[in-house]
């Protein structure tokens, strides 16, 4: 029972980290219909920038702000210089391929700059250490990560449901033309959303770095898991990202704990079952391709 509770907490930690990634990916897709295959690279980049900030200023909280800002800014530049050239109904594949090329290039540039050594970031002193959970122990940082993920989910939900900008974004999910018709600068919205999405990836990279050390190749490892989450949850939906993350995070954790032989296999099996029942994902807005 104790072990079960510990694993439940572990599952929540994994889920929240996935959620921060999936929310960004899903947001970008919902607004721009682009699956950003460089999302993992932005995660890794965020983590490494965080690492550099922590080394330089010895301040984790600063890293939490700087890394998303830099990566978000980079997102704006990429959207403005390249992605914008590829909008249009017939170029969805080109957009995806572009982000794939971007992921290849980014992955190599990151290794060039930060090297191939495994790097890890210490959690902030405030959150270091561990506390007892029944007779076992659990790290404080991981517990606070659960809280952070839930708060972020709430904030994103409020942003989408309660603000004018959020309303525009939600409208964009269903009809980009209509938003343009309302006299809103859709390009500005696109750039903003792409920046927000990439900044979320960088944020995940920073908060993840104390528990998932950084190394070349982590970008694609994280990307694949995130893709599974959004396929399961349904693209373009915040609820989908949230519950998809929970499902996959739990499946991964409990799979590792109780069915280790099937651990990698299990999350894909979950995905296959969901697809069989609901091809558009649990919270998919519409039957895709219709």
């Amino acid at each position: 029972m104790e072990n079960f509770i510990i694993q439940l907490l572990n599952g929540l930690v994994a889920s929240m980290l996935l959620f921060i990634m999936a929310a960004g990916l899903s947001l970008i897709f919902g607004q721009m219909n682009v699956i950003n295959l460089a999302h993992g690279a932005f995660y890794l980049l965020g983590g490494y920038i965080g690492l550099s900030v922590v080394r330089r200023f010895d301040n984790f909280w600063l890293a939490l702000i700087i890394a998303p800002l830099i990566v978000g800014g980079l997102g704006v530049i990429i959207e403005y210089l390249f992605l914008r050239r590829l909008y249009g109904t017939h170029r969805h594949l080109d957009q995806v391929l572009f982000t794939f090329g971007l992921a290849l290039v980014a992955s190599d540039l990151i290794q060039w700059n930060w090297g191939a050594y495994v790097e890890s970031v210490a959690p902030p002193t405030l959150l270091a250490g561990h506390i007892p959970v029944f007779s076992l122990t659990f790290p404080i940082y991981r517990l606070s990560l659960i809280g952070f993920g839930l708060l972020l989910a709430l904030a994103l939900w409020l942003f989408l449901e309660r603000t004018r900008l959020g309303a525009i974004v939600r409208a964009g999910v269903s009809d980009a033309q209509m938003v343009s018709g309302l006299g809103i600068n859709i390009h500005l919205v696109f750039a903003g959303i792409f920046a927000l999405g990439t900044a979320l990836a960088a944020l995940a990279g920073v908060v993840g770095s104390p528990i998932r050390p950084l190394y070349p190749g982590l970008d694609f490892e994280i990307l694949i898991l995130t893709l599974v989450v959004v396929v399961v949850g349904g693209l373009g939906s915040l609820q989908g990202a949230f519950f998809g993350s929970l499902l996959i995070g739990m499946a991964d954790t409990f799979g590792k704990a109780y069915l280790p032989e099937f651990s990698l296999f299990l999350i894909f099996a979950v995905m296959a079952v969901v697809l069989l029942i609901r091809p558009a994902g649990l919270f998919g807005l519409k039957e895709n391709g219709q």
Partner: protein
Amino acid sequence: MTSLTEQMGLSTWLGQKRVKLGLIIMAVILALIYPYVSSLYFLSLAIEVFIFAIFAMSLDLLLGYTGLASFGHAAFLGLGGYILGYISSRSDLALNLTSNILITLPLVIIGTALIAFIIGFFALRTSGIYFLMVTLAFAQMLFSIAIRWSGITGGSDGLAGVARPVIGLGSFSYEFSSRPSFYYLVLFFFLLSWWLLRRIVNSPFGWTLRGIRENEQRMKALGYNTFRFKMAAFVIAGTFAGLSGMLLVQFFRHAAPGNLYWTMSGQVIVMLIVGGTGTLIGPILGAMVIRLFPLFVSSYTERWELLLGLLFILFVLFAPKGIMGFLGVKPSTLLTQEKRPSG
């Protein structure tokens, strides 16, 4: 943008049926005499290019002709390799049954077709971006099975010691032990695949696939059960990819999980985009460029992955039709394939 060949007045020349036939015959003759003029090393490069050309052409049937962007095509390359490896590796884990291609080839084809059918059943329920991600996820699932099921697959070390292919019937038996002999085996399968795929894409079935690519909703309105055609395309593509995987493992004599990793799926997409999709010849050119590029560059710079990524981005942004687009050869139409009826 006017293409290079257009400026030089070459495209009309290239468009003539006689010229095309002549070029094909020339290429085949060159390929046939190649082992006599090539060093052993360049022979092995040609073998690799032909194997990857089969792989790339098979994806072209999906991506180029049917409009199905699979990001997990390496699943079938790896699968074909593992089936072959399991049958004919000398490793303790494997069956070590036979390396007679008259037995191994049908088993590889049946195995990959079966798995393609199962994956297709799930993946083809989706389309567009979902299809891309679902195929990627399924390939990763096979990868994780290959890694985890180490009692059969050798885990991350793979199955080493794969026996050289043999062709045997009754008392007759020939082992493709020398590299030139293996080259001719691969060349045979390459030409066969190209011919078969060409026939397929030009048949009514192939035109149906193009119709689905252009407008699936309309195809349904015309009465087509598009799911069945997509499934057929998916299985055929998977089978040819499995064939290329079989040859790859016979060549390297090692079935490894890297063959079904997403990087392999990514690489074949790069081949297609660089070469030009929906052309069959384009993927062959792409396979050549992508397999040879790192070889020449990586010896001089450690940043070749960066260069490859940049090259790919440039093609996506500025030359989405790939090398074939540069050559400016126009898409052929149904009527110009055969004689045009007057009228």
